């Protein structure tokens, strides 16, 4: 019984850390650019398919996966340059970037479906198969350990970047007020591009980790993940990085425990019911205060 | 003399900084009351308090003897207080006539069913509203633009439209926030004449304006704010000679003259 619980908690930790990673990128864009980038789910899916593409070209994993991540980052940058930048310049209402990025997601999903087929695929990687560490009565599958390490490692690096470096301080200034930041001589536009790039990288890593974790990727994997990301960042408070990570972890634990102790059908109902209640009761999120941008 | 609006001891803080500090002033029915003071003195903030956008940290606001504290902006407006905005807030994508008619919303009493059935009360009310709106546009000299979009108007004309829109609410008290800023002398004279004619119709006006000549010629009484405090109150004559007022303006900048 205790072992089963420990196993479930481990599952929850790996699922939650992926959600957290995804949500971190999602909320980063909202915090800095002030837009909801609904193509984040598409970028997540793209990361997984880029990895599949390079792995199937027989690149070694240690080259294929970072390349896939980089490609995802560049697509994120491209979306910023071609679409979001233009909308910023037009000072379009917040509806517009949402709709445009829904468009990019549909586009990416459709292209992935056309190029790779609609059915789900798996990475041609064998070294994760069934390999596991045994700690007493507990078996830790390698894949799960690697996923947790990569996810937390990435989040720690991001946290350091945002809190401790000059870049991070500049980004925080932009989050407060882009106009004031520009007056201070911060290259706001360039940092918007960089933010889109970084966020896409986080989305891409999350996509690859999901591919490793479930050993299945599909063109449609972005949508449910986007919903989870939305739930996580609202639980954590829109634009709040720490909140997004906590929200993602919370969601992972809540889902795994709901599946274990309730029924699997209600897994999604649980997270969305929760999201719905939080929105009505505490729209600023469960953890921390709302981030209100002074226009 | 009956007082329409009493402000007593109003204090408003933004993060510990007092934008308004113990401000008291009265607006008498049928008077034009001026509110002047250097930039950042707290004049617009006072309007925001009266219209219910902000809540004071201390003090009382009485309109016709009833407290306005805690009443939402739309209900304050319905009780008879209309305003214009220093940074123009028209509905730019709507036509002039629609901008004015929007402000008649709470006076149009037809019901939802009347709308769907296009019943007689509906058609009559709409017709009258449209006629009144045209008359108001005429009064501020904008009738030839009535079908254009508000956003296409010149700056001065936008200010005029704001006044027409406020008047459409049939208020008892009109709050004007820098109504002639950016206008040329002819336009200023038009607005001055308009405000005088409003007083003749027993409308009370509280007027913020930096143009001293305009204020002095028009107002029955003046209140001077500086750093959120009332530093002088009285007739235009008395204010002009008040040393504290002169000092406050010299410390900041010379009053802009029209």
């Amino acid at each position: 019984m205790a072992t089963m619980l420990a196993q479930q908690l481990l599952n929850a930790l790996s699922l939650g850390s992926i959600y957290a990673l995804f949500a971190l990128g999602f909320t980063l864009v909202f915090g800095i650019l002030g837009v909801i980038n609904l193509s984040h789910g598409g970028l997540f899916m793209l990361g997984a398919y880029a990895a599949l593409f390079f792995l199937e070209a027989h690149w070694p994993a240690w080259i294929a996966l970072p390349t896939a991540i980089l490609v995802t980052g560049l697509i994120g940058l491209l979306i910023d340059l071609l679409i979001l930048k233009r909308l910023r310049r037009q000072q379009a209402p917040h509806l517009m970037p949402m709709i445009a990025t829904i468009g990019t997601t549909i586009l990416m999903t459709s292209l992935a479906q056309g190029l790779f087929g609609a059915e789900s695929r798996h990475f041609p990687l064998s070294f994760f198969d069934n390999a596991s560490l045994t700690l007493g009565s507990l078996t830790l599958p390698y894949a799960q350990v690697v996923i947790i390490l990569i996810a937390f490692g990435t989040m720690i690096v991001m946290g350091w970047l945002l809190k401790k470096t000059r870049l991070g301080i500049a980004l925080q200034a932009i989050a407060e007020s882009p106009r004031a930041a520009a007056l201070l001589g911060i290259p706001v536009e360039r940092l918007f591009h960089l933010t889109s790039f970084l966020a896409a990288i986080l989305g891409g890593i999350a996509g690859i980790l999901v591919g490793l974790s479930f050993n299945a990727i599909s063109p449609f994997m972005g949508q449910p993940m986007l919903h989870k990301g939305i739930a996580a960042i609202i639980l954590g408070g829109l634009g709040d990085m720490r909140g997004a990570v906590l929200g993602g972890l919370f969601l992972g634990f809540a889902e795994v425990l709901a599946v274990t102790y309730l029924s699997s059908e209600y897994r999604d109902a649980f997270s969305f019911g929760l999201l719905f209640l939080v929105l009505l009761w505490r729209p600023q999120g469960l953890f921390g205060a709302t981030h209100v941008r002074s226009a | 003399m009956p007082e329409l609006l009493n402000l007593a001891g109003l204090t408003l803080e933004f993060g510990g900084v007092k934008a308004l500090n113990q401000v008291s002033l009265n607006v008498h029915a049928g008077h034009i009351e001026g509110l002047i003071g250097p930039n950042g003195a707290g004049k617009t903030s006072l309007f925001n308090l009266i219209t219910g956008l902000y809540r004071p940290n201390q003090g009382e606001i009485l309109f016709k003897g009833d407290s306005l504290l805690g009443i939402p902006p739309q209900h304050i407006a319905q009780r008879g207080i209309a305003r214009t905005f220093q940074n123009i807030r028209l509905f730019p994508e709507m036509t002039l006539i629609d901008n004015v008619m929007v402000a008649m919303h709470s006076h149009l009493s037809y019901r939802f069913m009347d709308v769907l059935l296009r019943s007689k009360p509906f058609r009559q009310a709409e017709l009258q509203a449209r006629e009144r709106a045209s008359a108001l546009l005429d009064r501020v000299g904008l009738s030839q633009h009535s079908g254009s979009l508000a956003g296409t108007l010149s700056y001065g004309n936008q200010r005029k439209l704001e006044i027409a829109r406020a008047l459409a609410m049939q208020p008892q008290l009109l709050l004007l926030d820098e109504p002639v800023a950016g206008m040329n002398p002819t336009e200023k004279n038009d607005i001055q004449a308009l405000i005088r004619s409003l007083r003749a119709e027993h409308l009370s006006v509280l007027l913020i304006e930096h143009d001293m000549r305009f204020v002095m010629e028009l107002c029955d009484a003046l209140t001077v704010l500086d750093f959120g405090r009332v530093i002088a109150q009285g007739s235009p004559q008395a204010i002009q000679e008040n040393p504290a007022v002169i000092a406050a303006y010299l410390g900041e900048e010379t009053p802009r003259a029209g």
Partner: protein
Amino acid sequence: MNWVDWWATYSTLVLSVGVYGMMALSISLTLSCGLLALANAAFMGIGAYVSAIATTTFELPFYPALLLGTLGSTLVALLIGLPVLRLSGVYLAMATLGFGEVVRIILLNLDITGGPLGLNGIPLLTQWWQVLLALLSTVIVLQCLRVSRIGRAFEAIREDETAARLMGISTHPLKLLAFVMGASIAGLAGGLNAHYTFTLSPGNFGFENAVDILTMAVLGGIRGLPGPLLGGAIITLLPEVLRDLQEYRMAANGLILILVVLFLPQGLWDSQRFRGWFKRA
């Protein structure tokens, strides 16, 4: 091809043009007062399921079933609208998306809705003229609203909600009205839809559908009633027209969304732009 064959092939498509025209109008109603509410697909689902259950399980006649579907979605909208409409901007969008997911998951898990399999064998009761009548009634009602104090207030709320309140407009009840009326239209459209498609499944009313409906309104333009109708027709017919593109069909939808947002932010039907043409000519 003669008329009978043509109708046999294309009737579903033609009816869908009408039904999705109603859906686009329903979302444009909330958009026209500045609310990005994405619950319309869910309301359509509620209307569809309620009326289909009424005709199949309870064997009610068509009209009472349609009425029940419409009332069902209206009632739910009233209940969730009260709290949800306190939110604005992206929070409202997220909350309504969340609500949509909740509805989909409930449909997926109830017995009476047939769970993941959905409902099958729904009687084909919807006639073309009923769809036309419903669509026309919607257009007429909305047109009446537009030229009344209510329509003007919607527009004012969209342009500057604070200024609207300072003009004495009680914005909350009006937003609720827009939201609830949108839900009624969607519920009716759903009931009509259920009775010509034969089957219903929870997936029909999820995120993709919500996005499609939004696309219709944005593509067509929300500044007038012809816009959403036009957008609804285009998005409904597009997959048919682009059938040769197969898997890439959806890519066209995505591309259209992007291009419209970037280059035609007011949508295809923009009366202001038309007016501009005539002025300059």
